[in-house]
């Protein structure tokens, strides 16, 4: 059958395959298509269908994941004063033993309390404020380091260097992206730890700065490749026009290319943010994993050296504790609720990015 199709195609009369019609030609001038075999048509439909499923699958996956994560967390809001034990006798006895340990879950406490004591014997508290602050502060500090580096490197690779250097740089930057996060964590634990202690006189090298530097190094490659792509997408006529007006290379980059590639560069930064928020293993190993809000000292005054305090992130908490939380317990459900929270954070980040980009486009 396949050969038939081929011969059919090969024997197509030349009159039926005319020269490409000129741009703007009326559709009525479109020639008749060459006829095809049934298998070819079915095959094409099948491939079309498969591709369609691939496209839609993202929606299915996102909603599926959200559904399953939320389903594990949801009972928190509906169960009333129930200890997570399989049979009623154990529930009662447990409740008698230490009744304050299992109180009704409160969303307000979850979001605004900074006390995270999920396995306390006397007073269980699930407050993730310190963890949210930890995630956001590590990410912000990482971006402070990564954005100038990443975008600078993108501009350099795209505009200022050529030929061999460009190729080498691109390959090496991609290599940087290929380093597994656990290896980054290991570097943080051993190398960065010592450097930070010695250079900054920090009492402990496993701290916010350590995690932020690792996250910055991890998100720079994404920023460079996407930033470079978006700079490359700026039409050459812009460059030519700029140069024709007598702009220097720097003026060209600053006044013409950066504004023209704004959307792509913003997307590059936000993908970097997404990577940093979601990163788990490296921050688990390098940030010191301590539940504190680093901006305040014990007496409540502002701590100017907050970047040298150990912090803990939402992702690292899930990674460290989910394995040992018994299935269906309140602790287990709260960890899933943290998952929902993380999901919401990334959703908001992406949504704002989308809206900002749309806003820019409209103008």
């Amino acid at each position: 059958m396949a050969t038939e199709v081929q011969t059919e195609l090969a024997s197509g009369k030349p009159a039926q395959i005319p020269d490409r019609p000129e741009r703007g030609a009326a559709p009525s001038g479109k020639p008749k298509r060459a006829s095809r075999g049934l298998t070819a048509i079915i095959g094409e439909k099948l491939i079309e269908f498969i591709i369609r499923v691939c496209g839609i699958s993202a929606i299915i996956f996102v909603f599926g994941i959200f559904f399953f994560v939320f389903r594990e967390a949801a009972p928190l809001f509906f169960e009333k004063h129930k200890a997570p034990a399989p049979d009623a006798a154990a529930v009662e006895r447990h409740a008698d033993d230490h009744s304050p340990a299992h109180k009704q879950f409160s969303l307000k406490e979850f979001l605004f309390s900074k006390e995270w004591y999920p396995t306390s014997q006397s007073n269980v508290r699930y407050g993730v404020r310190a963890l949210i602050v930890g995630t956001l502060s590590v990410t912000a500090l990482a971006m402070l380091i990564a954005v100038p580096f990443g975008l600078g490197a993108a501009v350099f690779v795209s505009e200022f260097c050529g030929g061999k250097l460009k190729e080498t740089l691109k390959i090496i930057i991609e290599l940087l992206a290929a380093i597994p996060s656990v290896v980054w964590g290991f570097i943080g634990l051993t190398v960065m730890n010592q450097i930070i202690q010695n250079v900054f006189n920090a009492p402990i090298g496993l701290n916010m700065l350590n995690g932020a530097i690792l996250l910055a190094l991890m998100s720079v490659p994404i920023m460079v490749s996407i930033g470079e792509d978006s700079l490359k997408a700026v039409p050459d006529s812009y460059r030519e026009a700029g140069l024709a007006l007598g702009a220097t290379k720097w003026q060209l980059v600053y006044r013409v290319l950066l504004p023209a590639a704004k959307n792509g560069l913003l997307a590059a930064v936000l993908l970097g943010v997404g990577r940093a928020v979601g990163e788990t293993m490296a921050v688990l190993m390098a940030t010191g994993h301590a539940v504190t809000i680093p901006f305040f000292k014990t007496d409540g005054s502002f701590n100017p050296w907050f970047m040298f305090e150990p912090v803990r992130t939402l992702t690292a908490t899930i990674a460290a504790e989910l394995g040992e939380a018994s299935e269906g317990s309140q602790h287990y459900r709260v960890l899933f609720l943290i998952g929902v929270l993380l999901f919401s954070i990334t959703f908001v980040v992406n949504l704002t990015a989308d809206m900002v980009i749309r806003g820019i486009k409209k103008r």
Partner: protein
Amino acid sequence: MKTKLTITIPCVMAILLAICLTQPGCSKSSNAGGGSGSASATSVQNIGSDTMVNLAQAWAEEYHKVDPSVSVEVVGGGSGIGIAALINGTADIANSSRKLEAAEVEKAKAKHGHDPREFMVGYDALSIFVHKNNPLTEISLDDLAEIYKEGGATTKWSQLGVQNIPGAQGDDIVRVSRQNNSGTYHYFREVVIGKKGDFKAGSVDLNGSKDVVETIARTPNAIGYSGLGYATPEVKIIKVAKKKGEPAIQPSIETTLNKTYPIARPMFMYTPGNPPPHIQKYLDWIISDTGQKIVKDTGYIPLPKK
């Protein structure tokens, strides 16, 4: 042609690798059910305490020489993981550095129909570690509680009378602790902080006994707790006194067995019910002189001789 080759070679290699990796795994799991295979080993899943994982590994390796028909597979992770696996039925033996809680016994009973069996297999002296440069030589449980508990007043080394630790940055005490499901964490909370108390927020919570010691070795400001078996030359074990003014005791085999060292604890192995013969044999061997010698060699404290 060239591109085709570059794609096919890694593909073929990946498939070969996958086959190589899955093959022994398959044969093992199929034998685990039958248990009668004479040539290949019956596998025993031994999951739990991170404190005990070195010891359990040493036992497993040594026992394989004694009885090649049994292969014990040791997985660490923490007492909580071991107990969860015991309840879920995925562990043949659960290691725990704390006793089962009543609620956990209930859960296991509900799942398996009978109470889990407990085997005491040795002791661990929970040791207090500081950096090797730290001049501190002893500490009382009260001082430890002030450092670690919620609301405790001690945050600076000078409050303990320690000045100028060589290499230290500033005066802050860096508290190294464990993740909140660890058996060691629970034990420390119970005996040092008090069952009703909680840890002071802001401690560096690490996921393994070894991590604690390694972090202290790199951090002159740090103090932390871990198993005696994890001691290295980079860190210093300090003596512990039960109360301020009482004599401080060095953790050792003698002080643990005569109960003068205040924070020693037994180590347990649990089985879901009465163990099958090959596991019973393994547990008997662990309690025997040969098994207990390994306890001593790996830095833990063997059971007293009968």
